[in-house]
């Protein structure tokens, strides 16, 4: 049985559905990528799973952690999962830390909650964690406030705080998007090494395909609130089958192609209030037929492995081109 299993997860805000039935399994120790454009529902999936969406969100479906249902669970039950079983780090590390509390206090708060550590024991452990995530002179900087750290260091503090509860799964929600490229690589490296050391599973939410290929075993591509393709990273990146996945790769600049033009995905993401009938990607898809605009495809197991939600998947087995992704 997988550690976390999500079935038919649907989310609506004010009657507008933004997540249309997500199925996703995360095994113990596995690293899974979740890829897609802004607003496709990558983050909402996990915020909904942990009950972190605002009250106006309607969440249905099932999220089980080792068989325990989280949707509509009592607040106490959710609190015992958050931070302890599943921890989460966010896109904007500087504003994700409370500006009026010292970083040490924010970390020891987790240690108290999940491991019962207090006083000097908690402080020593917080210093150890800060040291582990690569904060220099952690023993003195533990008493600083978030605004005294750079963005990258704030993300390291966030990671230390997430690790404080010894979670089985870390949800990294675009952890490098707000950071400089060199810092991004450092954070990705840190996440990989922590995973090696602790055996923790990770869900890596990103629109950066390079980052996903660097840290994940498996990835799912999302479009307009649905998973459209899911496979292991090698196959997904080598021979994408869904036209949208292929479009994502074609939009990456190729360092070897000189000044060749990029191939953008034409059109824009559909408005969730006004989704097209049939496949949501059909209006932007070169392969779309009249059938595609009438019926929505299900996510189906493919002969060559992986799952694709498309009536006309790309069956060519050879890779489209050598993808030049910056790997950290």
């Amino acid at each position, binding site marked *: 049985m997988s550690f976390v299993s999500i079935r038919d997860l649907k989310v609506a805000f004010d009657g507008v559905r933004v997540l249309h039935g997500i199925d996703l399994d995360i095994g113990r120790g596995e690293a899974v990528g979740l890829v897609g454009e802004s607003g496709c529902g990558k983050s909402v999936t996990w915020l909904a799973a942990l009950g*972190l969406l605002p009250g106006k969100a309607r969440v249905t479906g099932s999220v089980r952690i080792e068989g325990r249902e989280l949707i509509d669970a009592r*607040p106490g039950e959710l*609190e015992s999962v*958050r931070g302890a079983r599943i921890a989460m780090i966010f896109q904007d590390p500087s504003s994700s*830390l*409370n*500006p009026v509390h010292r970083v040490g206090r924010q970390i020891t708060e*987790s240690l108290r909650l999940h491991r019962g550590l207090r006083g000097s024991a908690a402080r020593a452990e917080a210093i150890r964690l800060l040291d582990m995530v690569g904060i220099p002179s952690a023993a003195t900087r533990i008493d600083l*406030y978030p605004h*005294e750290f750079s963005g990258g260091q704030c993300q390291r503090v966030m990671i230390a705080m997430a690790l404080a509860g010894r979670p089985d799964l870390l949800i990294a929600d675009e952890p490098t998007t707000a950071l400089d490229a060199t810092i991004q690589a450092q954070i990705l490296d840190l996440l990989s090494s922590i995973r090696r050391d602790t055996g923790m599973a990770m869900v890596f939410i990103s629109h950066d395909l390079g980052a996903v290929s660097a840290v994940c075993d498996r990835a799912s591509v999302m479009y307009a609130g649905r998973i459209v393709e899911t496979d292991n990273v090698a196959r997904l990146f080598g021979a994408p089958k869904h036209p949208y996945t292929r479009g994502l790769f074609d939009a990456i600049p190729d360092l070897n192609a000189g000044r060749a033009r990029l191939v953008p995905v034409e059109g824009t993401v559909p408005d969730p209030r006004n989704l097209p009938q049939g496949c949501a990607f059909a209006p932007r898809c070169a392969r779309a037929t009249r059938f595609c605009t009438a019926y929505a495809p299900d996510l189906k197991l493919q002969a060559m492995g992986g799952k694709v939600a498309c009536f006309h998947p790309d069956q060519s087995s050879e890779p489209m081109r050598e993808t030049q992704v910056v790997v950290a």
Partner: protein
Amino acid sequence: MLRFTLAKIARAGLTILLVMTFAFIVLRMSGDPAQVLLGPDAPQDAVDAFRERWGLNDPLWQQYLAYLQQILNFDFGISMRDQSPAIDLVLERVPATLAITVPALILKVCIGIPAGVYAALHRDSIADRGVIMMSIFGFTIPSFVLALVLVLVFAVTLDWLPSGGQDTWRHAILPIATLSIGGIGILARFSRSAMIEVLGQPYIRTAMAKGLPWREVVWKHALPNAAIPIITLVGFMVGALIAGAVVVESIFSWPGVGRLIVVSVSNRDLAVVQCLLLVIAASMVLANLCVDFAYGLLDPRLRQKRTQ
């Protein structure tokens, strides 16, 4: 921190000086105290003697320098009307004013802030809408209208409370109610929006994702941040403790500072008005200073900017 403190105090002093100067000039240009105090029928030689006695015939700059010199010697002048020291007249009114403004401030803080925070935590609920409606009601009704309505209901119709005067504690109830209702409305509305703003911040989501119970998220992570803007508004209210009840004191015949302002201004009792403005400016400036230091306690970002 020392430099920050000294700069703040210097600015406070400058503000008070500006208020004093402005008041001095405007008062002397806006009417002749001799005419007002002695009446229109006073003989010319009495008026001349009065002017001579109070130095009103000297050039304005000479009067001003003399005034400044007096102030530096802590001499706040003599009332032209009853010849007693102006500062005594002002200070003897202060306790009466504070007797209604301080309880009103306590009510504003103790009702307004919790109501606003509660509304923010239960956004869009019936309680939230109730708080919004009551607060709009509270701060849109002018205090003189509210005062008259309260008098009409509780003094005239029900005959539960006296309509004016200062004889017993029951006389203070209507003035305090009038003073506090508007402030409760303003504070409730302001606290609500400050709290809603803070609850939408990413660090609140972080605190929840950490597994903190909601109560702790609110008390430890949301309220300390929401307190920063709320303190500003409370600071204004503290600054208005002495001068904020002019209208209410007049309506309820409450013998406080506000009534003294009205009487002395209409009598052109220069020394008393100047002394009043000085005390009022000082109390507001002092309240602002306190707010500045409170910011430092609440917000580490500001504290560090100051030490640099």
